[in-house]
């Protein structure tokens, strides 16, 4: 049974650290849905969120293999507990005629913000879980989509649950 997991990790903010993780996933043929990385409030640390799918055995191997990387300090499978997941998406859509108002309404329903406007287009910013962003894309006419860009998920544990050095 494959299921979706969000793995968070803290690693040394060193050159090449990202390629060690990416290389691990490709070398061992693990799935990777998205991977995001940026430094934390402590500039020596990077935090990475990886969304992957696999059986329980594979996910166990993934976390073990990640832990084995010398630069990795901590690994947490967020999906093992309560957590929050957010992704940012920017969508550029055609917005003309009657469809223009309709597009704005749909964006409002999804709590999207229009952040750039031309006579014929809107650029909409949306945040939420991956499935909410998917739902938005399904709610609008796909013929109107000019361009989408998504960041991939970031995740954090709920409540007291945290990933710290």
């Amino acid at each position, binding site marked *: 049974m494959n299921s979706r997991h969000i793995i968070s990790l803290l*690693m*040394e903010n060193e*050159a*090449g650290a990202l*390629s*060690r993780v990416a*290389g691990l996933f490709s*070398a061992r043929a693990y799935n990777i849905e998205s991977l995001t990385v940026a430094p934390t409030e402590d500039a020596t640390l990077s935090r990475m969120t990886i969304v992957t799918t696999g059986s329980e*055995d594979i996910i*166990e*191997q993934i976390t*073990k*293999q990640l*832990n*084995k990387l*010398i*630069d*990795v*300090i901590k690994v947490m499978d967020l999906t093992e507990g309560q957590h929050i997941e957010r992704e940012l998406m920017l969508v550029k859509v055609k917005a003309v005629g009657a469809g223009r108002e309709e597009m704005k309404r749909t964006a409002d329903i999804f709590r999207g913000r229009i952040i750039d406007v031309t006579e014929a287009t809107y650029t909409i910013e949306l945040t939420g879980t991956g499935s909410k962003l998917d739902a938005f894309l399904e709610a609008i006419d796909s013929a109107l989509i000019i361009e989408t860009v998504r960041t991939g998920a970031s995740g954090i544990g709920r409540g007291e649950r945290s990933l710290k*050095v």
Partner: protein
Amino acid sequence: MSGLAGKMQHSLTVAGQTDYPHGFTNDLICSQFMEATGAEIVVRCLAEEGVEFVFGYPGGAVLNIYDEIFKQNKFKHVLVRHEQAAVHAADAYARATGRVGVALVTSGPGATNAVTGIATAYMDSVPIVVVTGQVPTPAIGMDAFQEVDTVGITRPCVKHNFLVKDVKDLAETMKKAFIIAATGRPGPVVVDVPKDITAHTTEFVYPASIEMRSYNPVVKGHSGQLKRAVQMLLEAQRPMIYIGGGVVLGDASKQLVEVASLLGFPVTNTLMGLGGHPATHRQNLGMLGMHGTYEANMAMQHCDVLLAVGARFDDRVIGNPAHFAREQRRIIHIDIDPSSISKRVKVDVPIVGDVKHVLTEMLALLKQAKDKPDAALTAWWTQIELWRSKNCLKYNKQSSIIKPQYVVEKLWEVTKGDAYVTSDVGQHQMWAAQYYKFDQPRRWINSGGLGTMGVGLPYAMGVQLAFPDAQVACITGESSIQMNIQELSTCKQYRIPVKVLTLNNGYMGMVRQWQEFFYGSRYAESYMESLPDFVKLAESYGHVGMKIEKPEDVEAAIKEAFSPALKERMVFMDFITDAAENVFPMVEGGKGLSEMILAEEL
């Protein structure tokens, strides 16, 4: 700062044989601020680590380092004839001594030639540090002459690697490299040093140790798990101990033998675990796996409690995992690497820790335990003896052609089981593993995980240099030996008196065997025309060459090779062996462990 000064003083003596132009005493210099070049730092770090040998090959990017090597006498540089051999020799040195092996190569082709050696060490978890030269930092990324992305190329086959971008980080990086290579599950570490860094200067301080927040290998096993394990062992009806290279690498064979003796359980070793439990011990069932003994494979398949120590259930060991899982058994798995546990086989009691540590604790618990091993053990041994009585390793001793197994048996007899034996990859490797009975760890040096043809001769060199008085034999095939044959020249230069035993069947025997069994005897490209005259070849390097064609000459030849008269000489023995001989027992790929083909069945 007094500690620091002491450190520096010691470091200075590393370069002590060079003249200090101003006639300063070391003490005087130490009290001053001393700058060292990156090249000096590399060399001093190696000396600080107590390195005995650096196996290497020079080139543009490492010339500053070589210049410093020229000026020192703390360690010996061994000039190989191909960088692959440098890494293999360093690897063998590490396997035989338990210390970190060191190789030094130049950028570009030097580094790429080293990759096979690095990957070989990686697959077998051998601690080595490989220093690679790199083009100067401003040239990186410019497709400069002899530039390759060494860190990128080696990333998937190292435990860790570093590109040093600032001379101030160099000493610390070297220290980290040695720590990472040697601790936890050992492995190769590459330190890539750009040429300009070797010319830049900084103050040299070699840290005594370094904390790495991201690297803390587990040592102690979980005590609750240990108790569960002991209970499970004492309840076992059909127990089995299965040991791998971790027991050898972890220097835990003494503890393992004690645990096994106390319990009275049967023991089997993987190819990498040979010598971890003495082969001549009554409880030892020999190697298991694809070419394991009948008794070891049957006992492995049918046991009800399995104690796996420093082993990883790989495909060559348990065959088809689904077939293995058909029999109910509970598994206790001790390993330093959590990712080795429950990777291919589900484990009931995982114990992550240093095997020596864990076995020591297990021994203490066993000694305290009121229960004794289950009485059913006697019946289990009866069964095992029945399997053993099949005598699965028997072969035709009346043959008029030399049987390869016979050569290995005679080697074992002549060397009294006390030699270091290296091998290449193929049938000869399996026969060496089956017929040379290793009673001690670190005596059997081969490429188990990567299966690299060409390791045999450089492995023998690394071992012989580490133990100049030891008997070192390289069991090889006529194909494998040609993959690093150029090292005969290195043996000449350093008078390395290894003894090579080529089991010359004219074929890439292991390939031929598979083609015979699985490809309708179509021997595609597995026969080599035009072999050299190995005797003349050896002699051309000033070595002793022998060609042995009759079974009755085998023993005499080996005796002569290991006689005092030839102790200082490299001897190349070319045994013309039966080309049709196959390795048995054999578990076909994808088959179950108990589905062996035995010699007598064909």
